[in-house]
């Protein structure tokens, strides 16, 4: 059975071009870039070439502002903990309630070690509470960490504006953004677009590079202590022998994404809209989460009321279709998506949410296949649901109130 992969916000397939570019560094050019002999110089040059490519793709920053890490989680840890340790005169941190755990959990840990943290909320459309954000800024504020786009809903925060407000308020406050879901998907320009952002995290495996490689953009002059000590690599800012093949892969992947970004973005956006429209037209009692805001073109988070997400994913997988859900039963814990809950999406809709995330490899035929099978999957589960009236193909009258009552 062919796989229809629509879970690209979780991870992506490695682009063939990326894989090609990496191979020599597993086989012939395996040398440690720190070694003195000539062959090692070539691996060192490959690392620096990748760094330059990435710097170019981020709007022509200085290559020295790019730091390679093991993953976006490491980049986030470095940014938040490193900024706190380098600036001990301030303690207060601001973030949002909808961050990825790679930021949220670090902030909670900072809280336990005596850093007060303000968690700014979002509204029903997932838009940030701007007055609340401004209120949260204090003279004690050390760092603001706000994601660029949300992994679950695809909603894009106005990072350009938020970082400008922060710097106009107090240039001493550092601004970090977790851009894991946007690098390679949206144009990122650290020079003209995001001049007020000091730190920006991302990883390779969301943009068709392999897992196990991440990067941190660290604006020149930003005070930040290393997270991994133990070597002079990355100018002493991240110890550990450079993961040469993966660094080369990340450089190639971001170069590739940037070359085709414009065209991909438009095509993927059309496919996503086709999927969204098709599902909304074919299935009653659905709701697009975050549909009212600016979203990544590849992401659709959609809720099917009165049924539970895991049963949908399970049936989808029988057709070889891969997607994910914010339901409690798929989270590994019993808690449904903290992002949808923060948006006050009703429980009925959170448990019945499905996220489709597309990539440049998604085809129209794949989308049409989903549209063909999905209405049946939903109908199957609604037949079993205590909240659904099959005769009318509508929710039971007593169940309607549940949508808004929680």
């Amino acid at each position, binding site marked *: 059975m062919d796989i229809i992969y629509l879970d690209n916000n979780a991870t992506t397939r490695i682009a063939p071009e990326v894989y090609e570019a990496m191979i020599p560094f597993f086989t012939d050019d395996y040398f440690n870039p720190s070694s003195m002999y000539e062959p090692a110089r070539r691996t060192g040059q490959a690392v620096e070439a990748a760094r330059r490519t990435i710097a170019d793709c981020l709007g022509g920053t200085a290559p020295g502002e790019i730091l390679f890490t093991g993953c976006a989680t490491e980049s986030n840890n470095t940014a938040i903990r490193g900024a706190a340790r380098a600036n001990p005169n301030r303690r207060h941190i601001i973030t949002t309630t909808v961050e990825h755990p790679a930021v949220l959990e670090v902030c909670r840990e900072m809280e336990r070690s005596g850093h007060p943290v303000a968690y700014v909320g979002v509204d029903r459309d997932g838009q940030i509470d701007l007055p609340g954000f401004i209120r949260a800024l204090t003279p004690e504020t050390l760092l603001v960490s706000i994601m660029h786009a949300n992994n679950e809903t695809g909603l894009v925060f106005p990072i350009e504006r938020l970082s400008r407000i922060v710097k106009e308020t107090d240039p001493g406050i550092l601004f970090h953004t977790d851009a894991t879901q946007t690098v390679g998907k949206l144009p990122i320009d650290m020079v003209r677009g995001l001049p007020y952002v000091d730190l920006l995290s991302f990883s390779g495996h969301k943009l068709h590079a392999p897992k196990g490689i991440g990067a941190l953009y660290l604006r020149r002059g930003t005070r930040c202590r290393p997270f991994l000590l133990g070597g002079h690599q990355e100018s002493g800012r991240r110890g550990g022998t450079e993961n040469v093949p993966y660094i080369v892969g990340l450089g190639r992947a971001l170069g590739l994404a940037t070359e085709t970004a414009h065209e991909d973005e438009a095509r993927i956006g059309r496919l996503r809209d086709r999927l969204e429209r098709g599902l909304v037209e074919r299935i009653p009692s659905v709701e697009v989460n975050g549909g009212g805001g600016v979203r990544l073109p590849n992401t659709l988070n959609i809720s099917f009321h009165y049924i539970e997400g895991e049963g949908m994913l399970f049936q989808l997988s029988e057709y070889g279709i891969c997607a994910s859900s914010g339901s409690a039963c*798929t989270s590994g814990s019993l808690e449904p998506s903290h992002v949808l809950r923060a948006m006050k999406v009703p429980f009925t809709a959170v448990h019945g949410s499905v996220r489709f995330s597309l990539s440049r490899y998604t085809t129209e035929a794949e989308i049409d296949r989903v549209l063909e099978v999905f209405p049946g999957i939903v109908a199957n589960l609604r037949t079993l649901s205590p909240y659904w009236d099959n005769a009318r193909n509508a929710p039971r009258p007593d169940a309607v109130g549940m949508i808004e009552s929680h």
Partner: protein
Amino acid sequence: MGWEYSEKTKQLFMDAVHGKPGTHLGEIENPDGLGEHGSIACGDAMRFTFRVRRHPSDPTLDVITEARYLTFGCTSAIAASEALCDIIEKGEYTPISALQIQNSDIVTYLEGLPEQKIHCSVMGAEALEAAVFNWAQRRGVDLKALGIDLHDQETEEGRVVCKCFSLTEPYILRKIKELNLRTIPQITSAIKAGGACGSCHHVPGGLQDLLDRVWQGKLPAAAGSAAGSPLPLVSIDAPAPADFSPYQFSKKVEKVVDEYIRPSLKMDGGDVEIVDIKGTMVYCRLKGACANCAGAAQTLKMMVERILKEQVDERIRVIEV
């Protein structure tokens, strides 16, 4: 995480969603017993109904002939519902003898369930109990007189321990004993308690205390022994200029905005909203026609800031939001 379900669980789920003959989805009209458990907020809920072949003289000898369910929940919740109905229909149970069916029987029938899905089988057993209670009421059977102590939900009202899933102390205590739960993860797997925010794990009167009470007879742990609570947010606002209180200062800013700035913006079909004032920083947003104007930021800086500097305080800075 992936699906670690047995083949039996997967098969039952697929049969159920495709409505294969022999499956039990649906609801019996005018049932002899009806029981519900769970809620849509918690992520799974079941409505269970059964019909009996009535004994002409002794209702306790009624035999369950048909069982049906409607379930909102995941793959294993639906498979567990199927399992329960099949066990009951095949076993020629009386409602009272059906009470012997435990969640572990459902797990066995399903050829195992992942640990974190055990609560699905517990839901089945709970819905069955509730249905038997309902049958007893309808048929005038005094369960207590028969030595059966059924805990319908009303009798288990009490202090809510797990707020996320609305589970009370009497209910959790009973389940700890019935299901022989020894650790907090076991409690969470079986009845969900403590599975979401986790704040009831180690607080006084929380899950660990209930476990201690059941298994060791210990007194509740002293307050303050729990993991450290987060520090309160220190909010230090920038000082307002010394000659005004912050309130007077913001009143003055608003007055100047109303008198000098709004009228001219309104002539162009626009307006300005003050979002916040911190110290001498005035956060504002242009509205109406001005909001989409390319020169909005310039307008704010040049005009609003200049006027406020002249009229209120020369240290004022305007920040567009």
